[in-house]
């Protein structure tokens, strides 16, 4: 990946905003699905697919590609919107989300859609799948990297910690693995630290022999720099704990766990889109 110059950063920020608008439009059309997580992860998905990843949307099964495992499958609207914008499939297909005969299943299915590396939805099994892919790359002496996007809530699953323990054991063998945690502090039943406390996450990962980096998940520059650092770490896998605001960019959704698992109504979507297009009222939108 090239250095991030000012024009590219501006492009990425605008793309993340567009992806947020696509997410709102998809969800209002689907009439079900998750809002907060996808909006919160738009900056990171944009940075990955439009700057960091070594991939080819026109050849999704290119063997040398970097792999992205989305462990918390329920935030797939952000994955779908990013893949469509990157050219994996036609943009208009986004509006088939969750509908009959659609390739955009409610939770991602590997063989349904180009660019989906694994099936997910049931939580806690993504990191270990990413480990399997990273081990396969090692055995085949391939240079590709594996990125796993995981939620904070699924760190309540035993499978997650089995995976973290195993990766810590493998040490430098898994330095091609980077896990990115969406630390947005919410889950369906409320705030993570009230439902089932996760902290101290940094210290837990360190105790399991991982390299830990914490970033502001909405600062693309900081995130890209963290991924660069992960690539430079030889002796162990890296976890990037990305602190994000669930519902980011839509004022009435931000930090409200009630928006974890529901879509906006048509009226709410109108307000949300207006906020995104005007960057929260700071600029005038041509749509108004």
């Amino acid at each position, binding site marked *: 990946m090239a250095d991030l110059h000012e024009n590219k950063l501006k492009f990425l920020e605008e793309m993340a905003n567009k992806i947020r608008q696509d997410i709102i439009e998809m969800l209002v059309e689907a009439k079900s699905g998750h809002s907060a997580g996808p909006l919160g992860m738009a900056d990171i998905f944009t940075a990955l697919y439009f700057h960091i990843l070594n991939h080819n949307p026109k050849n999704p099964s290119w063997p040398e590609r970097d792999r992205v495992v989305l462990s918390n499958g329920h935030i797939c609207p952000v994955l779908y919107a990013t893949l469509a914008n990157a050219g994996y499939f036609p943009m208009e297909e986004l509006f088939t989300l969750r509908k009959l005969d659609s390739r955009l299943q409610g939770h991602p299915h590997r063989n349904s859609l180009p660019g989906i590396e*694994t099936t997910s939805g*049931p939580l806690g099994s993504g990191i270990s*799948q990413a*480990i*399997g892919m990273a081990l*396969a790359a090692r*055995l085949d002496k391939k240079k590709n990297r594996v990125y796993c996007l995981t939620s904070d809530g699924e760190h309540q699953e035993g499978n997650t910690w*089995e995976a973290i323990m195993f990766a810590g054991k493998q040490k430098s063998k898994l330095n091609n693995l980077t896990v990115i945690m969406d630390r947005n502090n919410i889950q369906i039943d409320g705030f993570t630290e009230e439902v089932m406390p996760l902290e101290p996450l940094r210290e837990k990962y360190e105790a399991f022999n991982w390299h830990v980096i914490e970033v502001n998940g909405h600062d693309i520059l900081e995130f890209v720099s963290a991924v660069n650092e992960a690539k430079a770490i030889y002796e162990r896998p890296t976890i990037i704990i990305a602190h994000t605001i669930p519902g980011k960019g839509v004022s009435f959704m931000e930090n409200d766990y009630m928006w974890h698992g529901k879509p906006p109504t048509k009226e709410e979507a109108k307000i949300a889109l207006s906020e995104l297009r005007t960057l929260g009222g700071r600029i005038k939108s041509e749509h108004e």
Partner: protein
Amino acid sequence: MLNSRVKLSLKTFDKDIEQKPTRDGYGDGLVIAGEQDPNVVVLCADLTESTRSEAFSKKFPERFFEVGVAEQNLATIASGLGVSGKIPFISSYATFSPGRNWEQIRTTISYNDANVKIAGAHAGISVGPDGATHQAIEDIATMRVMANMKVFVPCDANEARKATLAAAKIWGPVYLRFGREKMPVFTTEETPFRPGKVEIFWEPNPKKDKAKKPEAVIIGCGSLVHYALLAAKELDAEGIGVCVVNCHTIKPLDEKKILELVGECGAVVTVEEHQVMGGLGGAVAELLGKNLPTPIEFIGMQNIFGESGPPKDLIEKYGMGVKDIKEAVKKVIKRK
């Protein structure tokens, strides 16, 4: 009489026949599969020796992964390897894998179409002294109900080796079921193993039996196929001609041949070291209910858990012995 075309051991009914557990065949199969294909990898959850993954781990250490006591991780790491061009075999006891990690197998292997082979060792009540916690008697059912999954239950160590090699070559998820206890090795190198096809191991003696056609067909899988042969031999001495079918592939079931054989005699006994619900018996009953309603008796665990004890005594106590199979045959013939 034994079907000469399937070339069973000449010692099939002898006391001094070679004894080996089916898990040994799995261990031998893994090494050969590893030699044949560099993409074969093996993962184990702290049971390397007893699942017979050890020989592979020594021969191909770079292709062997010890995950510790973590069966969910076992399945999901294998999923990642399986979608990346590898052919992972995951080894544990069947109560733990596919027991504890059933959802991971469903989502990340079966629905995900990952090329993973799940080996459940210590299946059935013949696990013996370890007791009911370690006796998997539900695993055929829980694997069979998954779309996209194939299920093999080999009847002895030779067939276990062949099933392991076949699984390595078949694309997609496969469940392989093995036992702990030593048992007769009564198939030979020449005995055919055709995935998805039953083999007739015993058929009426046309010179001796009253009817040339069998009066009932015994469909068995796994370690109890040998018991079924012993029962058939005794029944033959009593003038009752039966057919014994080795049904090593529970899924996909050999529907055509089973319907043909059942159609000839109109009475069926299924024999398995598994709950009578949902396993081989369930699969055969579904097939017959839909196409050819036929009286059927089920030998297996009758909606009950096992207990500690010597394997052979447990088989007798829970109604899966030679005597029980014979009684079931007589009962089902009367129901025609």
